[in-house]
């Protein structure tokens, strides 16, 4: 059994179609994680539109997908009304919240299709869109152990850990790893020691095959964006090193970041990992790329 991870949207905040985003992509958050025939969709940013077309073209066509929404900020839900499978009969889309009584992602996904925002009503969708929830942050879905965990983001946010048969994928975007007073920041020379990161995150990401995580800023960028709910790439590299993650995908690229700037971020993070002697492979999440574990 292998796990497949495909990036359909890697940008943060707002779709950014431009010549200078052509390599890493301009669509907002959407990542497909597949274990055998079980398909998880992490977030419904604008990247979910292309995923929807692809799902309907597959043979055999999937009948059910599991939609895990980290939080309901626009860039994580705006693609849902354009997700072709929602208009397709015989398709079931399970939308997960944290608690049965809260039902937040389902409520907001349907709310954004009120006539004030969108011409097609939620009740007219052809697919069966089913609200579901994790039980105390855990659920077993088709043999996949799904675990959610809280992240540090204004308004609240949850990451997801998906595990089956020894394959572990962690999706943790829109998370601010705050700089501790005793840590070196900004580390413009890339020479500082590993930063302190929350122990709970180290545990959840421990030995993951892949950690997809928010690295919106570099050191200079984060200087003016503290408390905005996103991390700088050195801090997430330090998290991945301490959690002994095998592969790190820098995610939720800043809408102002060019492809070349993202390349530079990857390069400096690789240097940091090498300096700390870490066996960690680092890349930037890129639209249209599929990884296999």
């Amino acid at each position, binding site marked *: 059994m292998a796990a497949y991870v495909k990036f359909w949207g890697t940008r943060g905040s707002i779709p950014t179609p431009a010549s200078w985003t052509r390599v890493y992509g301009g669509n907002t958050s959407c990542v497909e994680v597949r274990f055998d025939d079980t398909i998880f969709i992490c977030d419904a940013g604008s990247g979910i539109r292309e995923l929807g077309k692809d799902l309907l073209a597959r043979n055999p066509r999937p009948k059910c997908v599991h939609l895990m929404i980290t939080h309901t900020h626009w860039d994580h839900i705006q693609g849902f009304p354009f997700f072709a499978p929602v208009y397709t009969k015989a398709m079931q889309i399970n939308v997960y919240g944290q608690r049965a009584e809260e039902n937040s992602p389902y409520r907001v996904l349907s709310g954004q299709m009120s006539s004030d925002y969108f011409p097609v009503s939620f009740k007219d969708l052809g697919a069966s869109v089913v609200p579901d929830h994790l039980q105390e942050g855990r659920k077993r879905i088709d043999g996949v152990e799904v675990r959610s965990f809280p992240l540090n983001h204004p308004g609240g946010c949850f990451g997801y850990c998906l595990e089956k048969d020894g394959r572990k994928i962690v999706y943790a975007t829109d998370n601010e790893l705050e700089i501790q007073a005793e840590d070196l920041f900004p580390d413009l020379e890339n020479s500082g020691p590993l930063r302190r990161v929350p122990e709970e995150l180290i545990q959840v990401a421990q030995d993951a095959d892949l950690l997809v995580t928010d690295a919106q800023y570099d050191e200079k960028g984060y200087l003016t964006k503290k408390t905005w709910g996103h991390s700088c790439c050195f801090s997430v590299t330090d998290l991945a090193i301490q959690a002994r993650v095998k592969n790190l995908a820098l995610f939720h690229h800043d809408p102002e970041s060019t492809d070349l700037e993202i390349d530079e971020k990857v390069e400096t993070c690789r240097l940091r990992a090498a300096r700390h002697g870490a066996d960690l492979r680092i*890349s930037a999440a890129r*639209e*249209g*790329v*599929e*990884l*296999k574990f």
Partner: protein
Amino acid sequence: MNEANATITANVRMLRRERGPRRHSLEQIEGAGLSAKIALEPEEVVMGRGSDTQIRLASKRASRHHAFFRVRGTDCVLLDNDSHNGVYLNEVKIHSAVLRDGDVIQVADSVFVYHED
């Protein structure tokens, strides 16, 4: 719209049509059998050690049918055919990827640069 503007618009449309579909190619920069430009045509090109491949790799580290290049619309997609030693895109092991101009692809002992015109 006056007649001059209409002519300009028609000319632009004609030029776009004449430009035709994007052309995809590889340039080998490392490995045995260095060649000039390898056109990724027709719709599917197979790379590997096998004698029936369009891009033949003279390396024991290459699988018989190691990877596919498939043109989909205006894009070219690279797929690892579950090869033994994998396919690397810009130093990252991938299962598949939509290629972009300047991408560096490593298969077995050969390294290629992807170009789109």
